[in-house]
């Protein structure tokens, strides 16, 4: 459990600075420090066990089926890293307390820092590689926040984004690699994976896994060619650079190499990939570092170079090299963090980090200078400092290594690397502190406050101590870690400052001397370097990203060009493809169902249909004419339903048809009456082809269905139970209101919502652009002055009651004969519509002031309540009941609960239709400049002659 707490403590603790910042900066820093210290103490409490060779584990199930669990383990490697993270973290917190300005939001800084710390600790303590992945990505995210901490700096933003992108990308690569690794090993637990080295290396998936994992490691550890984000990340506040970009985060990649060393190393691929990239990075970055004028830039490339060296060491694949690597991790952390803090002090005091503006600070900042000399010497690998020892160990391994059959290749490259390392280390120390004093520094430098230099001093002391007594100070730890990394293969290694005169010593000596010479030649060398004009990786990256985003935008906008027609063509095409693909990929046998001979009238109807369709398609630009033609199709379809034994369908089709036409006419009134020719011949051809394919498909499907009998339908049950169970003989209606009443329930809801939406759409039509357009609307056709023709009005007065009776009749008989609530509702609606058409909206509506909303609401509620009542009686929703009731004089009447349901349907229909009509004519009325007519008919000879205007509100009452 302790391990989980160590990992989680910084996360939970991230709240502490956020909460304590109100109490002041000291309190905030103290709280943060306490969190880290507590974690460190917890960690150290486990150290004895670990140093004794024990592996401490904590296992908490999280996603057990995935194999992602909160499994932590602590071995020496973890202990070393965790100690480093927490220890240096503590120092960085102290340092940051003094480094941060008063205006910098400290609470946020420390909160982010703790998040990062937690993520790092999590990485090194994870026993589960998926868990490790989580922490891995969290380091990317938290470092993003830290790098971008100073939001006003564009470099900070860009640096943060670049770091996130590159390391994030690496993280995703790592996900792939680790998942494969887990697959090969059969577990995501490191403890298992580390035991499965042989199986892993024998697997055909080894190479892809390795490549993907290295993608993660190399990006995180800034290996070439992914190194370029690191220098730009240095825009972050110095404590961040010191912590993330030298001591901890960038080492995560190296850590993982070390962690997975037993499982992955030892193969040729590993050697060339890891060793090669590491070595190249080491040399390349060292060269670049020498020519950086910015202190942090120099240190950044130096860090890259050292990370390259570490990678190279683990890449060599020998236990001894691994030991050297482990040892150098510690060493590098000490001197590099110290140097970063030092650079921060210089920046803080002198106001610049530019080497060209610095120099001669030795007298002004003696403490800083001393620390810099020592740390710089350690970096240059000068005895008796720790950097020297690990470098010697590295050289020892390097001279034995051979690549591509060339035994000199590696040593020579290494030699170049350490030579440049020495040179830039010298340049840092000499360039800042020695040489001539400048006339004016941007600000007046003097030694920093204690709190600011003390942390680096502590690190330098450590560097010296390790250098002087490596076996004592670092020996047990290094050996333990090496054992953990190599799985015991490294054996006990005695760390010593002095190894006697040997080739590595000579190389070291040569490098130091050569470095000094190189520094003296810096000016001409820098000129050559500038002249080389190596491409700037950041520019390349920015361009790539911008080009990517641009291409993405272009692609997106090219594909989604706003054309409904393209969208529909794609959708229809896809549907045709799916159906045709399905049809063609399975066997089909033509059915044997006999066909019905078509009588002449059927052929005539078919001709009508074809003619009507052709007329609409060819003449669709004349919108009004198209509406006339489309009626023909509705008529033929209705006739077809009549002929093919579907009376209910015919009735419904007939009545729906006309209401639809009326709505279309109402809308068309305010819309353009013609459609211009807009699509090219090619487009029309495309559409024609698509239409033909779709038509053929539909015809084929229909034909195929009609020619086979198919399995018995469930409707046999409906037929058999319609009367006995549903109380009706019109099986279609019984299905609608009983067997599948739930469908009908949904259907009327659809109708109701449609009306509501129509209402919502039209209610606002008189406002904004639409209102403007309505106000300026001019009829595009000549109009007859007569609004309400007399004969029509008279006829509809007679037709309304007649049609109402018909509607009632159709409603009542629906359960047993063709008819039902929907048709009845439509018939009544049509009768009313006729009235409105003849006598005008204003006049008619005053005579039928219904609340259409209420009609719809009532309809749906009645239908729902029919079902609920059944539930209250203990039966399922919509369970029907019917009873033949004897009413005096009238006789036996079949009363069915489904009738109540049908009433709901009818009301909803009438409400919906009338609501739509009401608002459509409202909109048209707004376009009209005429006052609404209060007269039911324009011409009425029986009317008294005009006696002068009266207000319209005075209205004609009945």
């Amino acid at each position, binding site marked *: 459990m302790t391990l989980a707490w160590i990992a989680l403590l910084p996360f939970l603790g991230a709240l502490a600075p956020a909460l304590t910042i109100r109490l002041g900066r000291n309190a905030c820093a103290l709280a943060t420090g306490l969190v880290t210290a507590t974690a460190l103490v917890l960690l150290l409490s486990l150290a004895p066990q670990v140093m004794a060779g024990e592996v401490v584990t904590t296992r908490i199930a999280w996603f057990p089926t995935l194999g992602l669990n909160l499994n932590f383990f602590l071995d020496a490697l973890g202990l070393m890293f965790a100690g480093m993270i927490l220890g240096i973290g503590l120092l960085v917190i102290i340092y940051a307390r003094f480094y941060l300005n008063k205006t910098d939001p400290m609470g946020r800084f420390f909160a982010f820092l703790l998040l990062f710390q937690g993520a790092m600790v999590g990485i090194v303590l994870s026993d589960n590689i*998926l868990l490790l992945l989580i922490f891995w*990505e969290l380091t990317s995210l938290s470092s993003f*926040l830290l790098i971008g901490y100073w939001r006003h700096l564009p470099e900070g*933003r860009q640096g943060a984004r670049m770091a996130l992108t590159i390391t994030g990308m690496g993280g995703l690569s790592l996900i792939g690699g680790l998942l494969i690794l887990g697959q090969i090993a059969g577990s995501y637990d490191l403890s298992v994976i580390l035991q499965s080295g042989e199986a892993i290396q024998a697997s055909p998936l080894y190479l892809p896994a390795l490549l993907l994992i290295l993608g993660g490691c190399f990006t995180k550890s800034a290996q070439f060619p992914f190194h370029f984000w690191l220098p730009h990340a240095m825009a972050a506040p110095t404590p961040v650079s010191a912590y993330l970009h030298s001591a901890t985060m960038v080492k995560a990649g190296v850590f993982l190499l070390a962690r997975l060393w037993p499982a992955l190393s030892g193969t040729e691929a590993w050697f060339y990939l890891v060793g090669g990239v590491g070595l190249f990075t080491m040399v390349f970055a060292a060269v670049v570092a020498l020519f950086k004028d910015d202190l942090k830039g120099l240190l950044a490339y130096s860090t890259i170079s050292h990370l390259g060296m570490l990678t190279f060491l683990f890449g060599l694949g020998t236990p001894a090299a691994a030991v050297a690597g482990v040892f150098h991790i510690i060493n590098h952390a000490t001197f590099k963090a110290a140097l970063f803090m030092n650079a921060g002090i210089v920046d803080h005091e002198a106001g610049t980090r530019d080497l060209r503006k610095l120099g001669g600070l030795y007298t002004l900042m003696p403490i800083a200078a001393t620390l810099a000399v020592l740390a710089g010497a350690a970096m240059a690998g000068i005895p008796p400092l720790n950097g020297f020892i690990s470098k010697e160990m590295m050289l020892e391994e390097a001279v034995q290594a051979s690549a591509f059959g060339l035994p000199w290749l590696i040593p020579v490259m290494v030699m170049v690397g350490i030579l440049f390392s020495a040179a830039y280390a010298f340049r840092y120390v000499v360039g800042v502190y020695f040489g001539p004093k400048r006339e004016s520094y941007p600000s007046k430098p003097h030694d920093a406050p204690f709190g600011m230099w003390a942390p680096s001093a502590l690190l330098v002391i450590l560097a010296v101590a390790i250098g002087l007594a490596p076996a004592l100070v670092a020996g047990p730890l290094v050996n333990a870690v090496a054992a953990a990394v190599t799985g015991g293969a490294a054996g006990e290694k005695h760390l010593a400052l002095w190894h006697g005169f040997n080739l590595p010593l000579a190389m070291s000596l040569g490098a130091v001397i050569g470095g000094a010479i190189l520094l003296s030649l810096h000016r001409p060398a820098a000129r050559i370097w500038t002249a080389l004009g190596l491409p700037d990786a950041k520019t390349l990256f920015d361009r790539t990203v911008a080009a990517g985003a641009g291409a993405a935008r272009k692609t997106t906008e090219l*594909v989604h060009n706003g054309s409904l027609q393209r969208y529909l063509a794609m959708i229809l095409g896809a549907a045709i493809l799916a159906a045709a693909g399905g049809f063609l*990929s*399975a066997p089909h046998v033509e059915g044997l169902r006999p066909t019905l001979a078509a009588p002449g009238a059927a052929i005539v109807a078919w001709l009508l249909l074809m003619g009507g369709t052709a007329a609409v398609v060819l003449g669709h630009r004349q919108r009004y004419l198209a509406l006339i033609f489309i009626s023909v199709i509705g008529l033929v379809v209705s006739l077809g339903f009549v002929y093919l034994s579907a009376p209910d369908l015919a009735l419904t089709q007939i009545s729906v048809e006309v209401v639809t036409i009326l709505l279309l006419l109402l809308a068309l009134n305010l819309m353009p009456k013609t459609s211009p020719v807009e699509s090219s011949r090619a487009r029309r051809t495309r559409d024609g082809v698509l239409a033909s394919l779709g038509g053929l498909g539909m015809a084929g499907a229909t034909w195929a269905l009609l020619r*086979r009998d198919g399995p018995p339908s469930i409707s046999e049950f409906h037929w058999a139970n319609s009367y006995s169970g549903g109380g009706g003989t019109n099986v279609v209606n019984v299905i609608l209101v009983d067997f599948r009443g739930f469908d009908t329930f949904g259907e009327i809801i659809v109708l109701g919502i449609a009306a509501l939406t129509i209402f919502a759409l039209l209610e606002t039509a008189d406002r904004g652009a639409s209102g403007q357009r309505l106000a300026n609307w001019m009829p595009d056709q000549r109009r007859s002055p007569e609004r309400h023709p007399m004969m029509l009005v008279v006829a509809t007065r007679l037709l309304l009651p007649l049609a109402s009776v018909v509607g009632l009749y159709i409603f009542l008989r629906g359960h047993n004969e063709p008819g039902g609530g929907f048709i009845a509702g439509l018939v009544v609606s049509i009768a009313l519509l006729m009235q409105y058409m003849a006598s005008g909206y204003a006049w008619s509506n005053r005579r039928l002031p219904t609340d259409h909303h209420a009609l719809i609401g009532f309809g749906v509620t009645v239908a729902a309540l029919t079902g609920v009542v059944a539930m209250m009686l203990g039966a399922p*929703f919509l369970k029907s009941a019917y009873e033949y009731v004897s009413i005096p004089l009238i006789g036996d009447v079949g009363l069915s609960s489904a009738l109540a349901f049908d009433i709901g349907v009818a009301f909803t229909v009438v409400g919906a239709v009338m609501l739509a009509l009401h608002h459509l004519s409202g909109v048209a009325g707004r376009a009209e400049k005429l006052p609404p007519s209060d007269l039911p008919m324009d011409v009425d000879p029986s009317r008294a002659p005009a006696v002068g205007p009266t207000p319209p509100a005075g209205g004609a009452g009945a």
Partner: protein
Amino acid sequence: MNPWLVAPILIPALLAPLMLLFLRHRLVISRTLSVGACLAMLAVGCGLMAQAASGQIDVYAMGDWMAPFGIVLVLDRLSALMLVTTAVLALPVMAYAIASGLDRKGWHFHPLFQFQLLGLNGAFLTGDLFNLFVFFEVLLIASYGLMLHGGGAARLKAGVQYVVVNLVGSTLFLVAVGLLYGATGTLNMAHMGERVAQAPAGDHALILAGGLLMVAVFGLKAALVPLHFWLPRTYASTSAPTAALFAIMTKVGAYCILRFTTTVFGEGAGELAWAPGPWLLPAALATLLLGFIGVLGARRLRKMAAYAVVGSMGTLLCALAMFTPESTAAALYYLPHSTLSAAALFLLADMIAARRGDYGDTLAPSPPFAQAGVLSGLFFLTAIAVVGLPPLSGFPGKLLILDAVRGTTGGWWVWGFILGTTVISLLAFARAGSAIFWKSVVTEGEVKASAPVAPQASAAIVAALLAALAALTIAGGPVTGYLNATAAQIYDVQAYPDAVLDESRAAR
């Protein structure tokens, strides 16, 4: 029969007309009722889930007509999951709509919202293919209303496209139903599965044509490329709460693909078993890619969110297309995650737009604006969720999918696409966030925006959604446990048909 099965449908079905009848002008009461209904649905959903967790499949026969002759509602673990996801989404979205005053910006917001939930719940519960069509229509037409709510030329233009595309989709749905009914003589999905299994080989072409067309129709709802075209503009043009609610609409498509394929073209279907899978995968991959390319290419945050929905559907469908219990369980974990995270992003985009005045949600720097600190934090977390980074549920979601598709045909493609698109989206969100929040620190001037409505409440709602994602992550064990059981239940050839058809079998 458990009467509670109808509750998720009945609650909105009774409430919405009630609001229509009596409460059209009573905003406060409507709001109270609406929130109450959402809470009730959440409670009922949880109750049903608890019940379904036992593994029992509950069947409710509408009108007491047993399947396959009548329409049945079926509650299994999967439908319970969908109900709860819907309810969890609906509550904060409704709260946000109220907090931002959206429900005052037009008519009938609350009834439409309730009808929308009715349609969703119905679609998740029904066991009948045609009834599914009806509920599709209910949820679609309610969505039209919600989508257009508030009006404006841009919204209306987008609305025309949305409506027309879906009308075409409904037509295709009926074609598929017609083919399947004609070839199998039934509408109940479980029964259809049995009929498909028994169908003579000569009928297979028709059945498969119908089946694939059906899947294409569901794919249209699920924004499967190239059927996705309706989505970006619709989601980007409508009001934020509507877009947030719509996050579940695409999941209806995914749910239906899963339900339909497993019941009708499941293991028992012999030669036709899992036939839609191979068609689905390439489309899902294209969806994934095109979606996240859109995320990177967007000019506005809402467009970005809309494309993120497409992309996340690609992710989800990649997993679904494999049709293995593992991949399905993974997809089902990713489903609520992507729903809630997309909702959070839409709401957040709205908050940002509201505070930036004329700058709106464009991905360009503006002068500093109100609540930038809080919003940037929320944005960071939301982006993490949408991209699929730890610590939120997107990460385990993607891990689950990657883990599950390993070894299947096309698994490597899925890996490559998911990992690659994650990079793209990471880049996109980093750019977007930096443009909106970081660059605004240095941009001169000030934004002209009216004071945000209920700023704390809105932020709290987004935070609540993120908290739900956190909960999904923390409770990963129990959740995946439930989902594994869900997948097992779905892939159990007998469980679903037995539960649905037992009564009629006994009668026969």
